[in-house]
């Protein structure tokens, strides 16, 4: 699977209140949540973002609350993937569980706002088309690859059943 899009850069410790403010959490509607994405820190983000665009951020992206509304809101505004130096734990599992592609990458400082990236998920490669550079990302552990392959946790459970993980994680 290859994802291509324009970069929107964010800093370190972007928390889930930044991504979607608590006042909107009474909604479970992806499109509505998407229209409020990053409202507190970048009020124009949801209007400017185009379908397929990519968020690139620093450390601890998605810190704070467990709200799955955060990755839903990112999906809902059209973002196709998030690249960060590191992800907060619950955001990480929520993104995996709902099938939002997320990639850990150390070289995020070499990526600029509005760069065009091409992410080749199956080969763990990110090409920066604007700078003509290629970054290699580490492969997900097998356990997570499986969940991703099935498009998220629900499908994984439905396909593999409750006895999943009988084997080892290699």
């Amino acid at each position, binding site marked *: 699977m290859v994802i291509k899009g324009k970069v929107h850069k964010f800093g370190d410790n972007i928390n889930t209140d930044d991504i979607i403010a608590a006042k909107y959490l009474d909604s479970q509607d992806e499109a509505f949540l998407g229209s409020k994405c990053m409202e507190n820190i970048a009020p124009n983000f949801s209007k400017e973002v185009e379908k397929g665009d990519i968020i690139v951020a620093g450390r601890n992206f998605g810190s704070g609350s*467990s709200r799955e509304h955060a990755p839903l809101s990112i999906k809902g505004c059209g973002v196709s993937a998030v690249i960060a130096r590191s992800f907060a734990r619950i955001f990480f599992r929520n993104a995996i569980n709902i099938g939002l592609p997320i990639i850990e990458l150390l070289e995020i400082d070499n990526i600029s706002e509005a760069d065009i990236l091409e992410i080749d998920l199956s080969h763990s490669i990110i090409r920066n088309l604007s700078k003509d550079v290629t970054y290699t990302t580490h492969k997900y*552990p097998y356990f997570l690859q499986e969940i991703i392959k099935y498009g998220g946790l629900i499908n994984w459970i439905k396909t593999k059943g409750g006895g999943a993980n009988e084997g080892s994680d290699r």
Partner: protein
Amino acid sequence: MGLTLIEKILLRHSVSKKLEDFIYANVDFCFGNDITAPLAAKAFLKAGFDSVFDTRKVGFMCDHFLPARDFKAANNAKLLGDFSRKFKIKNFFDIGQCGVEHVFLIEQNLVKPGQLVIGADSHTCTLGAIGTAAFGVGSTDLAVAMKEGKVWVRLPSTIKFVYKGKIGKWVSGKDIILYTIGKIGVDGALYKVMEFCGPAMKKLGMDDRLTMTNMAVEAAAMTGIVQVDELTVKYLRQNQKFLSGRQAGKIKNQKLLKSLKSDKDASYENIMEIDVSKLEPQVACPHLPSKVRPARSLGGTKIHQVFIGSCTNGRISDLRIAARILRGKYIKRGLRVIVSPATPRVYRQAAREGLIRIFVEAGCIVGPATCGPCLGGHMGILDKGEVALATTNRNFIGRMGHPESFVYLSGPAVAAASAIKGRIVHPEEVTR
């Protein structure tokens, strides 16, 4: 090689009976609230699941936007009630019964030491103070756990925090955890478990321990945990006096309780010794829980609102500390001071002890038990430029309202003293 407490509990719950990088684990209890559970319920129904794994091991607590702030909030609580009836879920609680979930769950004996508990709320880590492996997950995790009784876990490493030294007069668990987060940063324990121990921990009450594990997630930890000791057992015994019948259960398995400790030769990623003897009351400044400074150094900071409550500091000990400072005094004119006992039981006890009267006579607004103010949900939203001092856990941009408002975090002593002065002060400034 020995195991840490969290490893022991995870091993006991691992489906494969092994500890691997990723495990699939059995869940003893799973829960969500009026924000996260409706999303889980919808995912559950969309997936076509037709039953829950155990009708007693699923819980819904309506506490975030309740008492309902508007139609939508009311509808989300109703949705959970309907869902509970349909799937015969026993533990559905509306705001009037539960109050703040993490305080309520321990009160009601719904979670116990040695269990593996997941909650669709990041402050599920609070429950680690009684020796439970408890951690926050998302709504899809909750939906799957409700059906399967299982959760996937990436095996964490553990950082051991050893607290030493005599604890000063106005210093509480909140000051210790704020100081710790200030030291290691908001991603200082990313993916890891924070195990709190050391001689100073023995001097803290259980409510202080709960405050500390509550904020483990603010250092990005998977959870915080405290080994079971005499204090834990005593606390659970006292707690049982409030309960009746099956709910009360019995602390019968002494052998299990005694085993809920880390082995002497357990392996830690890091061991940090922290001397608390010189520690002063701490305050986290906007907009990160790690921007910590001594309260004494913030004397010029004017505030518009004080909030005392939440899963961090809404327990009876917190209210006692605040009341001791506010007794016979009046809050600064023009300041809003909102006190919210975290659960109905805490509220009743505070009333019996005369604390509610002290707050009301001091000019405070004593509100219902709710998470509302902490997350800018309702009851105490800040306007542009307003500054709040809260005994809560997060001071992110816009956390309590307008994106250009400011939140400082402290323990109940600093909050109560500052309520009298209208600016952030050390408690000794009003108690001398």
